[in-house]
């Protein structure tokens, strides 16, 4: 079983790396990655399959449910980003975004290895903990993908405003597709983030003493919630779209990334078990 988890991990790393390289070459080279570019999404799919295989086998080995551990939560969020991307790639013409998605999946798969596989949260509330982690993981994945769409929007918008129309602009997804994708992902992720914050508050109430890292993480989670809520409300009320919405989304995603970083650099925090 241990060998199986290791093989799945390495195969996942190889497939994600190859996919990221092909997506990246296709994006930055004038002539693209040629016929090999066709394989990029397939390799991403293979990477995701291996990634899932690794998570399942590693969680069985460690007797830790994937949604009860920060290690698996990080890994799973990137896996969900990948699956979401593969599902909407063709319909929303997001091929170029694959360069980011594959890189993020690779980073999270490898990065999660530096976070210990321990069950997080206070004991005795495993159901709530699973719901808390699941909603946060999915919400985080949705926000990450929204942030990628926002970043691509800013690049494409800048090129078009500056009239730098070239082979590069032709490779980027259409502005409206990026804006729409970003909005839909935020809409889908917001209720999950809200649920995650509420359940997080329940856990916080059970803790006798919170560390500075935990306080910072909670503060950032609230900030993310307010930023995302602001972006959604301003879009609905004042028609904030495009560049403004992209900046707001990216700000929210930066907060999410800092939270993730805090987990990576201080993995013991929050491990109540």
């Amino acid at each position, binding site marked *: 079983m241990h060998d199986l988890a290791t093989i799945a991990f390495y195969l996942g790393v190889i497939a994600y790396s190859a996919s990221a390289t092909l997506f990246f070459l296709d994006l930055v080279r004038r002539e693209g990655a040629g016929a090999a570019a066709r394989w990029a999404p397939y390799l991403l799919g293979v990477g995701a399959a291996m990634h899932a295989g690794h998570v399942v086998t590693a969680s069985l080995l460690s007797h830790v449910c994937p949604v009860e551990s920060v290690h698996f939560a990080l890994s799973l969020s990137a896996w969900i980003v990948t699956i979401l991307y593969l599902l909407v790639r063709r319909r929303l013409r997001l091929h170029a975004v694959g360069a980011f998605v594959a890189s993020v999946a690779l980073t999270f798969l490898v990065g999660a290895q530096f976070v210990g596989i321990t069950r997080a949260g206070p004991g005795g509330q495993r159901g709530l903990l699973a719901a808390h982690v699941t909603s946060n993981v999915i919400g985080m994945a949705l926000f990450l993908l929204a942030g990628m769409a926002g970043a691509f929007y800013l690049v494409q918008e800048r090129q078009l405003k500056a*009239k730098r*129309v070239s082979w590069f602009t032709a490779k980027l997804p259409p502005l*409206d597709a990026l804006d729409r994708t970003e909005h839909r992902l935020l809409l889908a992720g917001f209720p999950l983030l809200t649920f995650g914050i509420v359940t997080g508050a329940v856990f916080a109430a059970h803790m006798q003493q919170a560390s500075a890292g935990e306080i910072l993480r909670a503060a950032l989670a609230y900030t993310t919630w307010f930023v995302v809520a602001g972006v959604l409300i301003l879009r609905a009320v004042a*028609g904030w*779209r*495009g560049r403004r919405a992209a900046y707001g989304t990216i700000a929210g995603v930066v907060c999410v990334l800092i939270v993730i970083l805090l987990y990576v650099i201080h993995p013991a925090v929050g491990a109540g078990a």
Partner: protein
Amino acid sequence: MIVVVGLSHRTAPINVRELIALPRDVVPAVLSEIVAHPDVGEAMLVSTCNRVEVVAAGKHGFDGADLGRVAVQVSQALVQRAPGLEGNLYQRLGGEGVRHLFRVASSLDSLVLGEPQILGQVKGAFETARQAGTVGSALNRAVPRAIRTAKRVRSETAIGMGQVSVPSVSVDLAKQIFGDLKGRTVMLIGSGEMAETVARLLGGGGARILIVGRNKLRVAELTRSVGGEGRQWEDVKATLVEADVVITSTSAPTYVVDHDLVKSVRKQRRGRSLFFIDLAVPRDVDPRVESLANTFLYNIDDFSKVVAGTLSSRQHEAERAERIVLEETQGYQRWREVAQMTPTIVALREHFQRILAAELERSLKGRLKHLGPEEHQALNKMCEAALNKMLHHPTARLRETAAEYGVESRPVEQLVAAIDELFVLEGEHPELHALPDATASAEPAEPDPEVELSGTHAAIGTRGR
């Protein structure tokens, strides 16, 4: 080998090209006329507004006829159909013809470098020729390879990237902003050939066209020619709220769409992107509009810069494309050289097969009489496998030498002579010594020694039993 005879925008002015403009339904008849000539065996006709070319081959496939005579007869056929072409037709023979065909299919000889239509036209011409029954071994090899070369050029270079006319750049930009044009609204202010073309192209993509103007008659006229819905000038603000793309092309001396007008509709537009295509000189849209969020403004100068950039980039890519064409032409010629070794290989193989079959038959009638059908089959299979293994190296060596030095080179002659002498093939296979003609009957596959080794002959045992 093939010949190409024809004329194009590079060699003949339009009044000459008009003489041989052929409707599609006439092409099969023309092809039949061409192959009716004594030396012409195959023909395909590529007819576009910029070129009319016949790709032809001799009666016996690759090298069955004098290519010069084939070219003369094709020229005669064309001149017969369109007197006045004399002196305007070019001829490309052999390797030159192959390279020309590959360049044409790859759009390197097109009026607009890198345009994508020519590949479809070459494919269409090939299909028409196939249906007319004028395609044989030579064209069956050369044309698919030309199509493959063109695909390589398109996938490995950026020769087809970007647009080279103002209307197509406008449509591309609209798609870059909005993605799908279906359900989008295009507002056309003013008239002009270019503006109308852009509106038609956007309308063709599924957009709704709203035409706004001061002159009611002109608006009605435009509505008829472009399609869409006419609006009064008083509705300009309301129409601007609905619009996604605004095309302006009026002769007004001042701005028709000013900054304040666009700013005033922003709230009602709820932040939707707005793309202005200003084709007028003097300009119709206030340049300050560009500073507004989600608003994109391109004037005629901006479009011209994009077009110039694309053309220069395509020119740069053409050098890389030429290298691919050269590589493919050389590859094709190498393959031809190798293909011409087929009769020798066939003869060598048949020689061994005959010996093996005879020995096998003798044994099966003698000491091995007691063997049943299953054992017979096993013996046959064993002999065939042994033969394949024995001939693998000599076959590969013959092909390599032919590819490296050419079929008429001294090393190849020496090898063929050695095979003749060592295995006494000369008497058995006189066709060996007339290589070029013989290739027509032993049509080779693309280089794949294994396929050829096992696929050329029936099992040894069928003769032996």
